């Protein structure tokens, strides 16, 4: 094998990019489209892209619901493709809110006892390879990661 440079080959990482969105449910398709384009360019399979899309929808809905006392605020979406993993950071400047600290719903209860809700973050955790939250100054940072498979 000769030392061909990294750039330009299929599955090359691609560039980090960032975009701002209004923190409103109506913006979810735009957020998804922005991330999907990068995920597709990165070579992510369709099934994994749909899982990422699901995680994005659930995470953005959460931010829209909890982050801002006087909505709408903003969400900054950063896409960070690397050779091994595809990461998306969702940053808002709302009240401190760690969605991962919320208890998971009891999945064994009967329909009549199921609370309507609480499922979004459960889905986020299960479809992604990694999800982390950190508070940095005035910012909530939720990082969603899908690995190369």
């Amino acid at each position: 094998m000769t030392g061909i440079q990294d750039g330009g080959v299929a599955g090359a990482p691609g560039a980090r990019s960032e975009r701002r969105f209004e923190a409103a449910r109506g913006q979810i398709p735009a957020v998804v489209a922005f991330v999907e384009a990068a995920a597709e360019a990165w070579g992510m399979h369709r099934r994994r892209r749909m899982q990422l899309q699901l995680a994005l929808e659930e995470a953005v809905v959460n931010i829209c619901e909890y982050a801002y006392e006087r909505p709408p605020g903003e969400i900054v979406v950063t896409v960070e493709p690397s050779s091994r993993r595809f990461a998306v950071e969702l940053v808002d400047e709302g009240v401190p809110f760690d969605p991962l600290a919320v208890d998971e719903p009891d999945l064994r209860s009967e329909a009549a006892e199921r609370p309507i809700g609480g499922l979004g973050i459960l889905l986020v955790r299960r479809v992604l390879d990694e999800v982390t939250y950190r508070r940095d100054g005035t910012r909530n940072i939720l990082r969603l990661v899908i690995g190369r498979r």
Partner: protein
Amino acid sequence: MSDRKGPDMDVELTGGVAVVALPQRIDTQNAPDVQAAFDSLLEDGARAVVADFQATEYISSAGLRVFLAVLKALQKDDGRMVLCGMKPFVADVFDIAGFTQLFTVVADREAAVAAAS
């Protein structure tokens, strides 16, 4: 517009069973429309409902909430709901949420109508 059912929600009555053909996506954007379509079906007296996911590629928790609400409403009234035609992504989402054991899920529409009758 007043068409709250949205473009992709066809309802067919087969021997007392209401068969609902679900749209391609059931998400935050259209879940209220899907909910409204089921609500009007129940208001019209439907007690045996088949939800056909054959065309559905994507569902999020907003969609799951609709089915849980419809199931609860039907169970209160001795009604039945059977789900069918689930593609792998949709089936996975139901599984992860622990919804698969709450519902009767069968392969196709024919089996669903039989199970709901």
